């Protein structure tokens, strides 16, 4: 792909203007503003930068954010695979409706998700009133962050695994069964390796979304410094204190992480495509 020369081996018009507009608009709306972040960070000296991004309160927020996002993505990988399996393989009444509702976390504004989850898991809420007497406090604890991240990451694994599961050829399972494998062995040794690239892609997407998430978390988190304060909230706190440099430094760390995840997902998707093409 990269070695192809710039050619116009087609009669279709509009290459120059459309590509020009695309690059211009992309630069104006996305690249230029993002570069402001990098330039602003560059105004800090290296020790200042490290002191800001490695301060104890900031490090505590990384631990909470990344830990909860990792746990939520893990739960979503497991249950997302299960939901995709049930939706693809079994015929159930109302399946279409459930299938459509899986995308609810994409469509429901995060602030609505936030206040709703918070009220459901509060001490007097529908689920909180069941859980709290049993000693499980969800709202206003790190567990609440995990619940919110699980909610917003739910569709990713389902939607990446589902199409792969639909495309799987039945012959390979029949072959496994004919060769004497039981159902679990077939799943473990034949199906899971086929689904793995998609599963990991979904996991990575859910993880990345969880780390950056703000709206659905702040209502349920309790936002206690060192305990249940997520990194995006810390950026806002610094901004409200007019500590632009501090906010920017932390944002740069998160942006670097986003790039890393974007790269990972791209590589995973390339792997899935190669996997599927085999």
């Amino acid at each position, binding site marked *: 792909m990269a070695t*192809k020369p710039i050619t*116009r081996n087609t*009669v*279709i*018009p509009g*290459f120059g203007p*459309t590509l020009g507009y*695309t*690059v211009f*608009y*992309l630069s104006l*709306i*996305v690249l230029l*503003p*993002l570069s402001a*972040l990098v330039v602003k960070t560059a105004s800090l000296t290296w020790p200042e930068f490290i002191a800001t991004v490695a301060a104890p309160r900031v490090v505590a927020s990384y631990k909470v954010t990344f830990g909860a996002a990792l746990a939520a993505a893990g739960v979503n990988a497991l*249950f997302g695979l*299960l939901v995709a399996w*049930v939706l693809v*393989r079994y015929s159930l009444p109302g399946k279409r409706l459930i*299938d*459509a*509702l*899986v*995308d*609810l976390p994409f*469509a*429901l*504004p*995060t*602030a*609505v998700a936030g*206040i*709703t989850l918070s*009220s*459901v898991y509060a001490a007097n*809420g*529908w*689920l909180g009133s069941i859980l709290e007497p049993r000693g499980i406090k969800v709202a206003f604890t790190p567990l609440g962050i995990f619940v919110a991240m699980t909610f917003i990451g739910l569709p990713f694994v389902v939607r990446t695994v589902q199409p792969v599961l639909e495309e799987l050829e*039945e012959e390979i399972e*029949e072959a496994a069964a*004919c060769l004497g494998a039981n*159902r679990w062995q077939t799943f473990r040794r034949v199906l899971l390796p086929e689904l793995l690239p998609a599963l990991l892609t979904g996991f990575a997407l859910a993880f990345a979304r969880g780390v*950056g*998430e*703000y*709206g659905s978390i702040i*209502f349920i988190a309790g936002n206690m410094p060192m305990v249940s304060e997520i990194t*995006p*909230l810390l*950026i*806002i706190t610094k*901004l409200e204190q*007019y500590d*632009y440099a501090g906010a*920017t430094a932390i*944002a740069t760390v*998160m942006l670097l992480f*986003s790039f890393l995840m*974007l790269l990972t997902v791209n590589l995973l998707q390339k792997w899935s495509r190669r996997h599927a093409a085999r």
Partner: protein
Amino acid sequence: MSGTSAKSVRTRTEPAPVRWLLIIVAFLFLGLFLFVPLAAVFAQALEKGWDAYLVAIREPDALAAVKLTLITAAVSVPVNLVFGVVAAWAIAKFEFRGKQLLITLIDLPFSVSPVISGLIYVLLFGLQGWLGPWLQAHDIKIIFAVPGIVLATVFVTFPFVARELIPLMEAQGKDEEEAAITLGASGFQTFWRVTIPNIKWGLLYGVILCNARAMGEFGAVSVVSGHIRGATNTIPLHVEILYNEYNYAAAFAVASLLALLALVTLVVKSFVEWRMRETS
């Protein structure tokens, strides 16, 4: 599946008890994380009855928030729609170096935290930002004003239309357009008469998702809004204010408008997906 024998059906499914167990666990998970929160929005919104509900959504600040949200979506959806079509045309109909990089960059706003999406505009246009002093000297307000809200929304909804259209138009190839041009149609005629009918469902799909995000965005808008009641509050920000004032019934009443929007989005989305499957 009609030609499959009973034997091979059995080799592709699990024993009934396992099947039921998997279904029950999947439904419990979905119930806990999807149905309960969705039901809770409406239950809480109507907790104090219809009258209180109607008062909450008709109150002037709520109406101002609805108006601002509609304005924001009315600007950001069309500009990103035009961009999506133009970008998909360039990427799907031509070969050029760096195409993959361009596609990755277009997707970039999806991987950036909403908070950062707001922050970058504060760094550009805020009082301490690059253009801040110049803007202040000319009495132009972007941050803590409507233009900032629109800009942040345009950023977070940037990829929606493009990422739907690029794979769709790549899959359709360029034979039909080339045929039209060869037969003497102009570029615009080809676009309106050949391309648009081919991509209309994909276009609608992108617009629906773009609109849902534009109306529901919270994090990015929260950073640039300044939270001025009746002036720079969108619906999600108004929900936050009501909630933080412990005015829960009103907060959920206004939130239920957004939940309804989400449900409408899902219905239209499912319909479009069904149409796309039918036509392909």
